[in-house]
């Protein structure tokens, strides 16, 4: 249904429930929806399963959500980074669960959820510990593992610009997981730096069509992506 524009990030995430699965865009800090994560921390929902490429950097964004004790489990490809100390401590003390998924499988499984694909045979990770116990099949002489969709109750993403129809354009490698996560969650919230009237974005350049976006909110400030960066 129609994309709505929330007055604040707090309003945009006001109805998140405990136990939700939240897809969080971004690759490291690029494309990370900082305002929305901060609002989610204020909103207070807990027992969350977070699906994202990483598990937080420094003390901001996902790391702050983790530090607030709101996350039960992280599904990601690369939790361990030089500044992932918040996650590291929680994980080592058994206070957060972890499912490690190869990065491309993470993206493709999210796409499958958004594209109505029930499961797919993937050649990545065959004969490795990350696919142990998963169903395998030989197709045309090659081995594949059966992978299932990852769907979210909520997706929080960041984009460069939106129009009032909810169409999004992204910027450089900050695009990363945004367009895919937007297809795969019941409620999709995007923070953007600017919202222009419908017709203000060239229809050929839309990377995330408005049909996928439920709520928009203007990010308070651009350049947040470098706060705490290393």
């Amino acid at each position, binding site marked *: 249904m*129609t994309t709505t524009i929330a007055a604040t990030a707090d309003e945009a995430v006001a109805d998140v429930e405990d136990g939700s699965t939240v897809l969080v865009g971004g690759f490291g800090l690029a494309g990370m929806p900082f305002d929305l994560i901060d609002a989610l921390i204020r909103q207070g929902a807990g027992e969350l399963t977070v699906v994202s490429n990483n598990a937080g950097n420094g003390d901001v964004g996902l790391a702050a959500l983790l530090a607030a004790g709101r996350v039960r489990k992280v599904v990601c490809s690369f939790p361990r980074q030089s500044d992932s100390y918040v996650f590291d401590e929680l994980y080592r003390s058994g206070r957060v669960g972890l499912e490690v998924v190869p990065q491309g499988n993470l993206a493709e499984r999210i796409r499958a959820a958004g594209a*109505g*694909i029930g499961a797919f045979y993937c050649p990545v990770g065959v004969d490795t510990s990350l696919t142990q116990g998963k169903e395998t099949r030989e197709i045309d002489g090659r081995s594949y593992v059966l992978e299932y969709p990852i769907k979210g109750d909520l997706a929080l993403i960041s984009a460069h610009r939106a129009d009032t129809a909810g169409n999004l354009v992204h910027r450089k490698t900050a695009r990363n997981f945004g367009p895919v996560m937007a*297809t795969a969650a019941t409620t999709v919230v995007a923070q953007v730096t600017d919202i222009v009237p419908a*017709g203000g974005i060239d*229809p050929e350049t839309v990377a995330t*069509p*408005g*049909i996928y976006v439920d709520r928009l909110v203007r990010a308070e400030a651009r350049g947040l992506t470098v706060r705490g960066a290393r």
Partner: protein
Amino acid sequence: MTATGNTPPKGPVEHTGRGPLTTEELAARVARDIPAGSYVNLGIGQPTRIAEHLPPEAGIVLHTENGMLGMGPAAVGDEVDPDLTNAGKVPVTEMPGASYFHHADSFAMMRGGHLDVCVLGAFEVSARGDLANWHTGDPDAIPAVGGAMDLAVGARRVLVMMKLFARDGAPKLVSECTCPLTGAACVSLVCTDYGIFAPGPDGVRVLETYGATVADLRERLSVDLLT
């Protein structure tokens, strides 16, 4: 014409002081069933006419499976652009807020259940909502499915717009489809010239009739009609 009061009627509304709906009236009737703000795919043929009856202020966005959201009306004169057509290959226009995408993305959008409504024509619909609209079953016909099967599973609500009776008088709302299926138990609502019907696991519920009573239709249809 429809019952829009605060107290919904218990049974079907029988519009008997008139004839069955014309195609244009039916298109308008279906249009009223599409909520404001919906993302909608209108199938080739009669459903295309619904577009003219959607109020502009409702902000309904049309999807065409050949790769566009925000499709506008048919192109006329200088607007005709061979690179911009609908799924029926008819030149169309672009609305503000449109977007283009390739075929795999377009059908992922459908298959993933992101469209609110699609409206399709049909040869037959069964009491449980099976849809037959791609093949008459004639062994001499050249099979051609297009996006029909994708659409049948690809919207939250699948509406059928059709005449209730074929030219030979045979009902098109049936106990079991005789034509090859497009999709099983996928139709939410059947909108016809003689009435509006909701098929389902328990049978067909009549919501409205036009130019006929429920009793009249019971005589002409072989399906049980729930009221």
